[in-house]
């Protein structure tokens, strides 16, 4: 006889599989949502303070992690994503400490720690939001791990990735969204 626990697990697994099968347009929204499993590369990146960080360790944390891909001189997509991060931190107030926002540079040749530090200051980023750069090879590996590889920064797309604490799956959001939508996706993912 099948136990209730087993049935619950089966149901969750089926839901994950259904979602993995393809992204779906979030109801009435301009972005697509999917649930995916990713394997992160064990690379060392550098943050806006010039400190080396082991990326996998940053991701495997008891905090909610939200990742996006940006670059310091981007004019259109990245400022919207970053304003979203800044606004999210403001709206969460003290709770923002439970969330780790990670922006990864897709222009590592240009985005030095100084450039990244200046960028975060411009968006009045609070502690808990890191901007990471690294060698082109390592950045390519991270982009590929998130199925978000852009051979050149000018072909990039707006993407957010949410991982709840201790979860093994990511919520992938493809498109630009407001803070309300982002927060609601985080709640849905059990990340808030």
């Amino acid at each position: 006889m099948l136990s209730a626990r087993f049935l619950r697990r089966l149901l969750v697994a089926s839901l994950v599989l259904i979602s993995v099968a393809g992204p779906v347009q979030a109801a009435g929204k301009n972005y697509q949502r999917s649930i995916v499993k990713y394997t992160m590369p064990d690379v060392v990146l550098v943050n806006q303070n010039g400190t080396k960080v082991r990326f996998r360790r940053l991701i495997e944390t008891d905090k909610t992690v939200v990742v996006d891909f940006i670059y310091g001189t981007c004019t259109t997509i990245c400022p919207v994503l970053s304003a979203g991060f800044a606004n999210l931190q403001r709206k969460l107030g003290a709770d923002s400490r439970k969330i780790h926002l990670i922006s990864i540079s897709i222009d590592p040749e240009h985005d030095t720690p100084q450039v990244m530090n200046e960028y975060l200051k411009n968006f009045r980023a609070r502690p808990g939001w890191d901007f990471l750069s690294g060698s082109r090879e390592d950045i390519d590996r991270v982009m590929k791990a998130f199925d978000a590889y852009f051979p050149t920064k000018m072909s990039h797309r707006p993407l957010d990735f949410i991982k709840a604490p201790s979860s093994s799956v990511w919520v992938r959001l493809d498109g630009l969204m407001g803070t309300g939508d982002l927060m609601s996706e985080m709640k849905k993912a059990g990340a808030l």
Partner: protein
Amino acid sequence: MTNKSTIRRVSSAVSLVGLLLLACMAAGAATASGAGSKPAMSHEEQLRYGERMYREGILPNGKPMQALVQGDVPVSGSSFTCVSCHLRSGLGATEGTVVTPPTNGRVLFQPRGLLQKNFEMVPTVRKYSLSLPQRPAYTDETLAECIAGGVDPAGRELSRTMPRYHLNEADMAMLIAYLKTLSDRLPPGVSETEMHFATVITDGVRPEDVQAMLLPIETYISKKNGIASAFKRRPQSMRMAVNMMGPDLVAMKMSLSRWHLKGAPDTWRAQLEEYYKKDPVFALLGGIGNGSWEPIHRFCEDHRLPDLFPVTDYPVISSKDWYTLYISKGVFQEGEGAARYLNTMHELLKGKTILQVVRTTRRGKALATGFLSTWKAFGWPAPVTVELSADQPLTPPLLDRLLTKEKPAVLLVWDDAAALPAVAALAHRADRPGMVVMSAVSLGPELRHIPDAARSYLYLTYPYRLPQDDVRYDSFIDFLIKGKSFDEQALRIVKQSYALGALQSQALMEMRGEYYRDFLLDTIGMMPDMDLPLYERLSFGPNQRYASKGCYIVQLGKGDKPELVKRSDWAIR
């Protein structure tokens, strides 16, 4: 009774708040427009304020503009400037999935159809046009409504990525007045039939280097003019060229003047003014000089004249200037690369001395400046610096004395190949620094003859792709150099100039027939990264002014025919 009284009180309070709000708005408008006791603002002043709003997101009262994006994200205008999406020329762009339409008056005040006239079959223009909805012409009123409320004159709501700006009437009028001036008149050097350029050649450059710089540019212009002539003779047979370039560019002839600058650099400005007056050009292409490019750089800033990829070891290092686009930071970039590399060893170098021996030539000083500015930005104290005048040799005894005194962990020698014997003599010194750093480019042909004993501790800054890797790119320039003889330095110049040809031809094809100077630079800023000879990666981006950003740290391998061996990434972090 109580309810009615409450309602009356609330209603009065609302009316009072409304009146106060109206009063505040009126006061704000009066301040912004300079009404009241202040004299009326001149049209020029209004345009200056409009430009500041457009480019910096700062209101005439000095405060940042305020806006909302994505429906509920409040943003400061200084982070979300008009220029960041619509670009300096106001002619719009495509980035990833976001397409921004032109915002210059000339285009806004015309209705927009499905496709751009005469460019219906040009793929880049067609794709751009189809990304934008059709609409009637704007008026001042509908444009103001659009900027504030995000609705176009067809009643269509704009993308939520477009900020909805809160502007009072006077500020809005200044912004619109400025938009009307953007890219509204063709610049000098461009007509319907011709695009005219110049290249600057300064005194003292080796003739073979001048030829190396000119070869790719003149070849490009000659090929382009060949297409224009063929199109004139047989337009029907040039359908593919028309589809790639557009009907205007395909028919346009190009020409290049050579502006020779003679004498001392402080006389160049007058010579440039004279050339420009007699021979107005759309842009400067390439150019070559042995010294600082600053006089030409400043001239271009003042005349708003693009200057693309001059061959110079001494570009102006600036994060704000706009009109000169360099292929790299030149010699400065090698010093920068050394600082970045040493910073990766911060645990080992904490509390240790770094000694910098600087030959006080232009090259030595540029290397030291590149190192020092980057090193200090990382938060390190300045290294101990010893300057050597141009005629003071770096002998083994002198270097010994310096090392005995300073006991450095790292020695930087910003000198030429004449310093190699002193550096090689360190092989016998028990307490020599763990690492000696020099510039590979400064060593010239002697790079391949570094004494064996020094190869284990001598590290070199190398700002190009390694020669053994660059051979894969030889085919790019074979057609240019076939049957000609160039030494290593001249060949490098051919490759730099080739990059200019590739960049320029691509940029002109993406300009949608809008040949404005700022749009040329805007277009280059939005181009994909390029994989070309000599540099690992040439990348652009809005406001980026140095296309190659990397520098290897290498060592010379063993043997008689040694290869360079990488000791760092291209972009050292």
